[in-house]
């Protein structure tokens, strides 16, 4: 199923001591958490049980936009079984400042207001009060007894209308940061950014044809299966323990400390197993609320979101309005590219429009570009990252226009991408110059793949291709690793495992030390037990925590070599380590294995512990994907069936190929759902009509085909094994690839997501302006 192609490294900045032939890297050991997960033993946040546990519930605004005049909690507090009731008044004053969450900065006041509204409710579902009671049923009943006096205000739901002067304002004190200058009037546009390269007008003059197109995408949700949860215990001594489902224990600690005005040292966060995150479990929602309820009641309090709350009140990703204008020459060369991206921020600023701007033309070497981005407030939940946030929306626009250009120029879609493709040394519009990247290699692999040339017979069938990019991040990771006397190593990590990273990181440590993957015992631990780690996100963990594990392994290796030297009574410089065996440089009789040495640590000086704490300023290596998809469109129903899907991606080095394949398949599945099924339905009052799995249509097993993956290995020079981030790239191409395939199958170009049967059918029936005729 997966073809792994190895590419020789022609330029490598570091002389690596790791051999290119690996013993562990590239194999497929069984995941360390597999047994627990198939037996139901794995402990997720909602599984936490503590003596005296109370159950919490949150009252949420039914209005999309309202001033909160008063909240009367008297009846709720009096209900038997209720132990605490809180509102934002219980949070206490905090000084507003900017906090960094690892995937974008936020004003503390906004973060605080999002978890419990003060003054205004800014979306339907916005939390306004919370209770803790002896049973979940009583908590639910108590919520219904809280009386809130709202002054209902007009909702702001359409992002284009929100941008207009005279639109109702969400924040009366918010002015646009307009290319660095603060606007005079308050606005729903929080930010206007621009990237520019070359001379756009000059570029357009060179064009033989200019294509101007407009695109709309809907707000969609990450759709992780496990709802948000948090259990907090605020002990009498002022120490706060939080068990939760999160992509970053330290991030939760930071946010909770900021919101609750506590020193970070008094908070311990225990990240439980996480049932999916995809970017949506970086911001806190429940943790500070659970903490305050615990403080007030004196008992541990558990809050678990309902499915409707997850849809209404967490962090879906931006809907968007994107306009592109691209100038092309008849030979297929793009001479100028302009884009305007307006992204929904939701109730508070901070959409990831800047990421969309970075990615929209990123696969291409274009001399003249201008990209404008707008972060726009609407009365919907504050958006959060969703797997390559911003890039999928952007690629839907750019990759479908590129497809049109290919058709106009009479050039094969893969070829037009190759003609314009970015490579090492290409400068992106935001200024970054690419190091070694693998875009062209993905195009080459796609072209060579049987899918690209397989005949596609039958009416109503078509094939589409699209590419995509995600930049991946590095950030900070810390690990410790302790050698056990039986020759195993206990590896302590602080980055929650959302895709198999505990194993992929363990494998890197194992490779360096010459151990088997099964001999490394990885654990993700709480914030008191390991050094600081940034969030699991940005496709960084296998890269960055892997780098830390490699360094910790080298640390262990140095120490083990010293121990061997001590055993032999020789200087440490005489001991060489390779493949888990420690040898004397010249005396071949002196050698000892890691395992043998581990049994003798006591007599040579005691425990051996390796550590590493890194800020990986080199990025995790940008990743590119090129996807091919075949569809059949039923012209009488508009239903799109995916017949075949192939995802090609440059993955640097696949530490554990199964996991990398899994990331590609998972990203494609989500991208396909985004493309064909998923959207938020708000009524004209801003209330969400489809906050359930019945109504928010995620693809099921029967809706998706087998997804073929091709892992192209173009090593990342920033990592000894060549690791690149892989998890986010695969969600970027699917909507565009599908739109391009639908065009070839049905003759209609859709520029709005999702491309559900109703939209496809109406496009088909009104194709050429003719109304529907016979059945």
């Amino acid at each position, binding site marked *: 199923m997966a073809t792994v192609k190895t590419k020789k490294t022609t330029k490598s900045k570091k002389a690596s001591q790791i051999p290119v032939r690996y013993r562990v890297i590239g194999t497929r050991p069984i995941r360390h958490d597999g047994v627990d997960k198939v037996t139901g033993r794995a402990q997720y946040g909602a599984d936490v049980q503590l003596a005296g546990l109370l159950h919490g519930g949150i009252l949420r605004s*039914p209005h999309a936009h309202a001033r909160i005049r008063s909240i009367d909690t008297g009846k709720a507090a009096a209900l038997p079984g209720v132990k605490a009731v809180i509102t934002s008044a219980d949070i206490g004053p905090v000084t507003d400042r900017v906090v960094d969450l690892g995937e974008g900065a936020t004003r503390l006041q906004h973060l605080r207001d999002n978890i419990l509204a003060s003054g205004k409710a800014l979306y339907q579902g916005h939390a306004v009060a919370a209770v803790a009671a002896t049973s979940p*049923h009583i908590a639910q*009943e108590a919520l219904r007894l809280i009386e809130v006096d709202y002054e209902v205000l007009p909702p702001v739901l359409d992002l284009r209308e929100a941008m207009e002067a005279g639109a109702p304002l969400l924040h009366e004190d918010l002015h646009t940061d307009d290319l660095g200058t603060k606007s005079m009037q308050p606005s729903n546009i929080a930010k206007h950014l621009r990237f520019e390269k070359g001379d756009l007008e000059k570029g357009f003059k060179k064009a033989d044809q200019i294509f101007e197109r407009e695109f709309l995408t809907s707000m969609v949700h990450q759709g992780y299966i496990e709802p948000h949860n948090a259990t907090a215990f605020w002990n009498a001594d002022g120490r706060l323990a939080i068990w939760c489902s999160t992509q970053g224990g330290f991030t939760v600690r930071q946010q909770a400390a900021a919101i609750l005005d506590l020193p970070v040292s008094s908070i311990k966060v225990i990240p439980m197993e996480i049932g999916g995150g995809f970017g949506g479990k970086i911001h806190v929602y429940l943790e500070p609320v659970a903490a305050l309820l615990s403080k007030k009641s004196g008992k541990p309090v558990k809050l678990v979101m309902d499915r409707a709350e997850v849809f209404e009140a967490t962090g879906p990703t931006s809907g968007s309005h994107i306009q592109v204008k691209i100038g092309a020459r008849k030979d297929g060369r793009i001479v100028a590219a302009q884009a305007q991206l307006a992204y929904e921020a939701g109730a508070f600023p901070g959409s990831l429009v800047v990421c969309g701007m970075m990615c929209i033309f990123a696969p291409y070497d274009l001399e003249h570009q201008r990209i404008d981005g707008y972060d726009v407030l609407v009365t919907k939940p504050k958006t959060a990252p969703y797997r390559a946030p911003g890039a999928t929306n952007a690629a839907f626009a750019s990759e479908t226009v590129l497809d049109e250009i290919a058709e106009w120029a009479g050039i094969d879609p893969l070829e037009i991408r190759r003609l314009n493709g970015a490579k090492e040394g290409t400068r992106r519009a935001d200024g970054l110059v690419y190091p070694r990247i693998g875009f062209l290699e993905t195009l080459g692999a796609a072209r060579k793949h049987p899918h690209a040339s397989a005949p596609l017979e039958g009416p109503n069938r078509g094939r589409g291709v699209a590419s995509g990019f995600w930049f991946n991040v590095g950030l900070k990771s810390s690990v410790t690793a302790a050698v056990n006397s039986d020759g195993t190593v206990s590896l302590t990590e602080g980055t929650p495992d959302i895709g198999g990273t505990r194993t992929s990181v363990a494998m890197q440590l194992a490779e360096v030390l010459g151990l088997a993957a099964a001999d490394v015992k990885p654990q993700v631990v709480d914030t008191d037990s390991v050094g600081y780690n940034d969030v699991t996100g940005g496709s960084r963990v296998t890269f960055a925590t892997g780098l830390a594990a490699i360094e910790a392994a080298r640390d262990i290796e140095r120490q083990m070599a010293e121990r061997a030297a001590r055993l032999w009574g020789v200087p440490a410089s005489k001991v060489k380590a390779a493949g888990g065996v420690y040898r004397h440089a010249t005396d071949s009789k002196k050698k000892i294995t890691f395992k043998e040495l581990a049994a003798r640590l006591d007599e040579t000086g005691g425990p051996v512990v390796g550590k590493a704490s890194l800020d990986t300023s080199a990025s995790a290596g940008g990743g590119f994907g090129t996807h091919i998809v075949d569809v059949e469109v*039923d012209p*009488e*129903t*508009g*239903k799109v069936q995916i017949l075949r899907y192939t995802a090609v991606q440059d993955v640097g080095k696949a530490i554990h190929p199964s996991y990398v394949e899994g990331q590609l398949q998972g990203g494609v599945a989500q991208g396909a759902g985004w493309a064909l*099924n998923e959207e938020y*339905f708000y*009524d*004209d009052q801003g*209330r969400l*009509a*489809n*906050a359930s*799995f*019945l*109504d928010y*249509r995620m*693809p*099921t*097993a*029967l*809706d998706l085909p087998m997804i073929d993956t091709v892992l192209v290995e173009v090593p990342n020079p920033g990592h000894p094994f060549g690791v690149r981030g892989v998890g986010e790239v695969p969600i970027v191409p699917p909507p565009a690839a599908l739109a391009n395939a639908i065009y070839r199958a049905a003759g209609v170009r859709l520029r709005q997501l999702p491309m*559900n*049967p*109703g*939209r496809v*059918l*109406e496009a088909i*029936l009104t194709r050429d302006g003719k109304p*529907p005729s*016979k*059945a």
Partner: protein
Amino acid sequence: MKNFAYINAASEKAAIESMSDKALALAGGTNLLNLLKEYVLAPEALVNIKGIAGLNAIESFEGGLKIGANVTLSELLDHAEVRGRYPALHQALYDIGTPQIRNMSTLGGNLCARPHCWYYRYEYFDCKKRGGQGCAAIAGDNEFHAIFATDGPCVMIHPSSAGPALVVYGAKVKIAGPGGSRDAGIEEFFTLPAAAVARENVLKPNELVTHVLLPPPNGKSATYEVRHKESHDWPLAMASVALTMAGETAQEARICLGAVAPVPWRAAAAEAALKGKVVNETTAGEAAQKAAEGAKPLSGNKYKVQLVRTAVKRAILAAATGRRV
């Protein structure tokens, strides 16, 4: 959910004596419990009818079948005679929900389920059926709502997938009430919102569907669904068709639409168009055209008009040829 008492009905009589508008019958629970969880319904008691003897069997009856209301959808799907003699019913049930849903849901429950309309299912939307003033769907998101009888007070689509198939077979339902048992034709069983917006069928609060009677089948039949998702979803439009054939000619046609009206919708004009004609692509298409006439779609569901045509045409052809399109 609001707390409730749980009453085990050991017999039809016991059930009827316990049931009221505050004490609702509980069969599989896949529809009812969700509504309780949303506080759309808050009964004081649930009356378990699953223990009533005689309601969970499939028996031969006058050349046809007598199906107890407590028979699960899975049991119906596994039954050779249902599959062999009533393919329109089998096909209508085949993709309902998921395997787990089909294991739990009963035929009676399928007929009596409350609507899927999301404005009905969430308490903060205005909904006449729930006692409110208006219908949020008419001006709101009505992509999944009715295209027929849309001038009424409620534009829901009837949630029963079995309904249209039972209509084309001319089924009857047996209803038990305080006065004893009576039979009602399946079409009379369903009621339009205009008759009483709070109900979907003729049942009084203390009446119970006990059996469905299927007469012997008289020809060929099929059901065609247009679906978005292949599982965990409801059809966008469906058509059940039963044809009495003489060679290649349809002597009689019964065509019923689902998921497009507040009740299973007889497509009488389509039936008339097909009657006496040789069944082929052309005649099926003409009948399908007729089926869609009279549709008055809402702002967001014009696409369903074409889906009706597609579903009817394909159901007719599937019935006549025995082949899925």
